């Protein structure tokens, strides 16, 4: 299955959703808040960039838009690397059937 294209609209796969707040997370004062995505037989904790990416996978934004938003948000980081990292991340999550695009 190929990586997302610019026009792809990534979204959480059927039956995958964000967990209720503070559920399954270990938020300590000073840390960026973790959130958890629940899916069949598992859960992943997300914070930082991973969380930023998946919160934008709403089935509305295109892959190109998500990249642009995060490149703007993390202006210090290499934009090419941001793109390839996010592409890989979404492809991996697709293989786990957590994300569709």
């Amino acid at each position: 299955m190929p990586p997302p294209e610019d026009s792809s609209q990534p979204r959480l796969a059927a039956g995958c959703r964000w967990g209720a707040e503070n559920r399954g997370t270990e938020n300590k004062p000073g840390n960026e808040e973790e959130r958890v995505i629940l899916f069949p037989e598992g859960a992943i904790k997300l914070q930082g960039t991973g969380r930023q990416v998946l919160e934008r996978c709403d089935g509305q934004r295109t892959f190109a838009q998500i990249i642009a938003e995060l490149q703007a948000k993390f202006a210090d980081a290499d934009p090419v690397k941001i793109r390839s990292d996010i592409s890989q991340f979404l492809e991996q999550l697709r293989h786990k059937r957590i994300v569709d695009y």
Partner: protein
Amino acid sequence: MIPNPLALIAEITHRCPLHCVYCSNPLELAAVSSELSTAEWIDVLQQAGKLGMLHAHFTGGEPLARPDLVELIAAARAAGLYTNLITSGIGLAEPRLKALVDAGLDHIQISFQDSREDSANWIAGTKAHAHKIELSRIVRRYKIAFTVNLVIHRQNIDHLEEMISFIEQLAPERMEIAHTQYYGWALQNRAALLPTRVQLERAVEIVAAAEKRLAGRIRVDSVVPDYYGRYPKACMGGWGRRLMLINPAGKVLPCHAAEIIPDLTFENVREQTLEFIWQQSPSFQRFRGEEWMPEPCRSCDRRAEDFGGCRCQALLLAVDAAATDPACSLAPAHYIVEAALAEANSSAAVSQPAPASSFVQLQRQARDLWSYRTNPE
């Protein structure tokens, strides 16, 4: 401080319209009259949420046999849990499915016994196959996760490719190809179910190829056959480490089969809270950590990976729940598993019955081959 459990396995009833010969339910099924009430289950689900659990797996028996299932799913969802229904699908038509989804069902897992109708019905001891196909089509109209589970064994493993193509057509997000685990009814029927080494090796290749081919479309998860493994499975992710199971009568167990361990006493949710049981009950403590481990586990590099394997299998095969799992090639009692394998691979082994042209004919042949799971009183 013991970390919180991650998931609750709610065995809400042992009643089941199927009689699968590989069923891992205990031979002593919980009586219908002993089942927890709706209010008792709701209370337990709320406790599970407060304990920080993430998933609630509704299973049985057949969970659909409980008329209050919609209420229980709603209660689990309200308690913040991800809800999974593990079912044969018998007893589910579209209106009830819709009610379950509306109540917050996240994931449905439907079991199939085979791709071939006669054989599937023969393994299940009842005519369920056609309904399951019909139901799978209806499931795809709803936005929930869908897993197809297939238990494989000596009688169906030779057409695994055909079964995988069959599942593919049902278009689930996930397929689970599970080798039979030998507990309960499956252990009783082991001679008819344990595959040969040749069958197994072929199956491993087929699953690996399917995994690759279906990547990004259908996730393939497989349950390995521990009898043929070099090391045991990390049963339940370790005793009392991740999961709590509540049986239909409210007994709280670290795994599906634990009740068979004779020197353990299990608390009941009617008398104790889940939190107390998780943190303090002697039964959950008994095989936690490494203190209990015998050699060769105690000094083994893998002890934090497989936790010595399965306590129930140790009891069933080596007659000592504190022994190294006999599935482990390093276990003193491994010869017991080797003997079973030798038998399965010998020419005198129970083979597949001659091809039968009908379910009725298959059923007639089955009489000497295996015993079907019965139903609780």
